[in-house]
């Protein structure tokens, strides 16, 4: 166990929680209806961990604890068999792990046990970001209006993820499957991002699933 403090920030389920978009749903609404060409869905309350360290050090622990190989190639995104857990390359010594909500603290604890005195860092950022799914036939066009990164399928195959500019904010953009894109946005920017997506998508019709 490296000499770091761990802290389980979650507690029993009876206590009400508010996702980063709670304000936005109240304030901007969540359009529903037919004839839309875009679907937005927030995957709230997931567990988000930032993993930092050398790839060699972390890979073994991650494989052992999570059953996924640490993606060593830039921009790589890998999932476990269920598709519920993922690890994404963010930089040569930084990865984003997303797991079902509540798994992040046990996962951190196990990783720390496995890694022992090695030099690494794990930071829980679950409260600080949320994941937005974008799908529908106009998804690609919506993304072209929104991010500066080249989202053309030839440049952005399934299994890729990048940190890039989202309008005047930033995002992590990922492509877990052919038809689905994921945006990881910071909590404080989430309302701006949500309003942007509704506005940019308005010409196609947007359906927000809650």
């Amino acid at each position, binding site marked *: 166990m490296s000499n770091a403090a761990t802290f389980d920030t979650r507690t029993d389920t009876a206590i009400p929680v*508010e996702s980063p978009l709670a304000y936005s749903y109240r304030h901007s609404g969540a359009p529903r209806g037919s004839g839309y060409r875009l679907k937005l869905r927030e995957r709230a309350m997931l567990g988000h961990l930032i993993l930092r360290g050398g790839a060699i050090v972390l890979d073994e622990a991650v494989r052992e604890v999570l059953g996924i190989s640490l993606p060593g190639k830039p921009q790589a995104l890998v999932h476990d068999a269920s598709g519920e857990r993922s690890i994404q390359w963010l930089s040569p010594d930084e990865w984003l792990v997303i797991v079902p909500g509540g798994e992040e603290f046990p996962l951190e604890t196990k990783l720390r046990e496995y890694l022992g005195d090695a030099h690494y860092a794990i930071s829980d950022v679950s409260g*600080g970001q949320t994941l937005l799914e974008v799908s529908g036939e106009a998804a690609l066009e919506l993304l072209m*209006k929104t991010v500066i990164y080249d989202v053309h399928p030839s440049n952005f195959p399934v299994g890729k993820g990048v940190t890039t500019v989202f309008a005047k904010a930033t995002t992590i953009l990922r492509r877990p499957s052919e038809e689905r894109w994921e945006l990881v946005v910071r909590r404080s920017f989430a309302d*701006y991002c949500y*309003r942007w997506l509704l506005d940019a998508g308005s010409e196609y019709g947007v359906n927000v699933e809650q």
Partner: protein
Amino acid sequence: MSQSKQQVFRLATGGRIDRTRTLSFTFNGQPYQGHPGDTLASALLANGVDIVNRSFKYSRPRGIVAAGAEEPNAIVQLGSSEAAQVPNVRATQQALFNDLTARSTNGWPNVQRDLMGLVGKLGGQFMPPGFYYKTFMAPASMWLTYEKYIRKAAGLGRSPMEDDPDSYDHFNQHCDVLVVGAGAAGLSAALAAARSGARVMVADEQEEMGGSLLESRETLNGKPADQWAAQVLEELAGCENVSLLPRTTVNGYHDHNFVTLHERRTEHLGETAPVVNGHRPVRSRMHRVRVGQVILATGAHERPLVYAGNDVPGNLLAGAVSTYIRRYGVVPGRQLVLSTSNDYGYRAALDWKEAGCEVVAIVDAREAPKGDWIDAARAQGIKIITGSAVIEAKGSNRVTGARVAKIDIDAFKVSGPVQELACDTIASSGGYSPVIHLASHTGARPTWRDDIIGFVPGLVKGVQACGGVNGTYALGDVIAEGVEAGIKAVATMGYTAQTVNIPSAERLQQGPAVALFQVPHEKPTLRGPKQFVDLQNDVTAAGIELATREGFESIEHIKRYTAMGFGTDQGKLGNINGMAIAARCLNRSIPEVGTTVFRPNYTPVTFGAIVGRHCRDLFDPERYTALHQWHVERGAEFEDVGQWKRPWYYPQKMSGKTETMHEAVARECLAVREKVGILDASTLGKIDIQGPDAREFLARIYTNKWEKLAVGKCRYGLMCKDDGMVTDDGVTSCLAENHFLMTTTTGGAAAILEWLELWHQTEWPELDVYFSSVTDHWATMTITGPEARKLLAEISDIDLDRDSFKFMDWRSGKVAGVPARVFRISFTGELTFEINVQANYAMHVWQTLFKHGEKYGLTPYGTETMHVLRAEKGFIIVGQETDGSVTPEDLGMQWCVGYDKPFSWIGKRALTRSDTKRENRKQLVGLRPKDPKVILEEGAQIVLDPKHAIPMPMVGHVTSSYYSPILDAGFALAVVKGGHQKLGETVYLPMADGQTHEAEIVSTVFYDPKGERQHV
């Protein structure tokens, strides 16, 4: 009015318009009709509208000259309602739609009867270049008055005063090959590129792709050329890797092959975007495209000849005449005289004749022109006058005749008798100018080619030019060059090109053109009738000659002095003629004179497209804390701190009256000092620092010591840049031996994380430490005031005893049932607990605090109260007390400087530089106004002797100033030269209103100087 009466100049057959449907429109309030496929310009010509505008400077009547982007006169204002106003639209580029409403841009009160025309006529002789500079300069004080009227008379269009109902956006695109222009060259290049599988974009500014192929007299593979274009377009449309963008102007070519395109998506459908399936499409779009290889197939603009009266309505470009006849089925007159320097111009006469109208004569500047088109004209029985030119157009509101004479180009004189030919239209062709604008945007200097009498684009990396822009005009050669450019482009991008069969074109016999720009007149240029070079900016040949006589030799200076090629025109028609005239006057060659620089945008772009969606409430990101909803519901006024929206103060409504800011802040301050207040401090930057060298890193980056900070303890830290100036501050807590949580200022969060990474990555990579931002993960609620402990004790399991949970300790436990880290630090000087919980729980914890807090008088307070409370305690705010020129010592914070730390931490060495050591540096002090009712102005300058003659030596300024409710007096923090040695002295603050305030220099701590309250 019947249709036939209206569209008197419309041919019964021919053109690419749909005669089965009729569209109504108005121009300057008059109703007219046209057809789908028309541009506004072609419809106006069909209706015989001669005058479309008044000229910019002389207010002369002007008609349509061209058929494309180069049109200098037919610049109109669109829109039937205020909200729909669009200025500066070229009628030649605006598709006709039903109920289109257009007005002339200039002309006051109207184009037919123009008051300014009088000024133009009178002023004609008196308005040389530089007229405005010379005439309206004195007295200088009157300039604002003059300017108002000059602008009213001269402006180009106006913007709408009401909200635009349409939406606009940006599209970020990437492609291997961008083909600019879909004429013969562009289509060939696109086809070659597309077949390789590369990602290809094709942009063309016109309604219909095909360029000159759409109106060509020539055949390809034995069929009309437009059929080949249709076939190529069909193939391209079927390619998944190709995106075709009609109505899209490539407007800017920027660094590293970044290209901006302006796509007009619904402008051809109506003045606002028509709703489709309940959704309103985007009206206009800016494509921001990163391109591998740019293929410039922008073609060439025909150059008009510069002769007297060449601006009278009825003077057109020869090519435009052909376009109107062949593409729109409109003959813009009855009797034509063509003045040309080359073979290409002959096509206009042939088209005119074939349309059944009279060609009075072709006037060719060459002595013995030879070629297929000349033979064709002779065969048609058209009279050809050689070695001559139209030297002057007669008429005022429409051409009534052409004065024709033999000319000697080299001697620049009329060399024979003048004959006047009656006609209503004069077409002129002086050859072609390649459209090199985009290549020029990159900074590449164009190259002059004598053989084509024009500039071709300079070479830039990542660009191919083909066809007209390259000076290649013969159709077969253009297509071959296009194919070659396409193949070269995709090969460079790593694709394998496929074969493209080049269609067989006719080989026409053509003779060389002659270089003719300004046509000589019997009178010298300066005394003869006006010969226009730049119609849009009203620049004449005489103006250019005068500029050279006044000593302007550089073409860039001539441009600025005369306004040639300015503004929305960008020298499309006139630039080469202008340079040629300057060259003649200066007795130099054209390449010696050189060309001016063209700049983006090629044609005007609507602000909507430039702004995209970055407007209104999406203009800039607004960052919210997890408690934003609560603040909004509580009626908070918000303050922008960086992009954050922070509650500024919470005005209360009492018996129907809302508190003023002053009242609210006073109430909030007293609540904290006497009971308990709560602040949403979630915006503070929070950085998670882990690693065995974390402590060492902190010691290097902060000015103070960190070696002994124990687990469970917090410490205030000050950060400098290496110049010794304070850059950030905040509290850092030791979470575990190798684990720290740093807080930064709200505004500094991102920059400080980058700052830490900078030092770690560049100077100290050997230190084992990692930094991650956890700002958004935690919500921070600060409860502060004498009752804070009692309140927290009600809902927390943490031992809050003052001896076990001391000031500058942190503990973890549960607050309102939620895991929390609680920090006992204080920015108010009162007993304070900073509660940090995972942000998703924040609302629950905050509401629980209020549920229990009412009996203690729990009062939410905002940033203004926070500022007052901290200033009463003399706590600095980085960026308010500091401005990048303030050291820790200037702030009197030597207690926060580890002079004897082993590592020479960031900023240390600079503290002993001669400038940072000097004694009269501005130092932070408190100011107590002699009159307690006075609140000094922040930023007010401080002097020692208010009787000193102006300018008084200024010794400092006020950095923070407030009213203190607890002291019931104004107080301030200030920086004063040598201030630390001046305690008790009196200083003066002369104000703009003539008052001078008096204040005493005092300690920066105004309240609880011993700091007892935070320890209770």
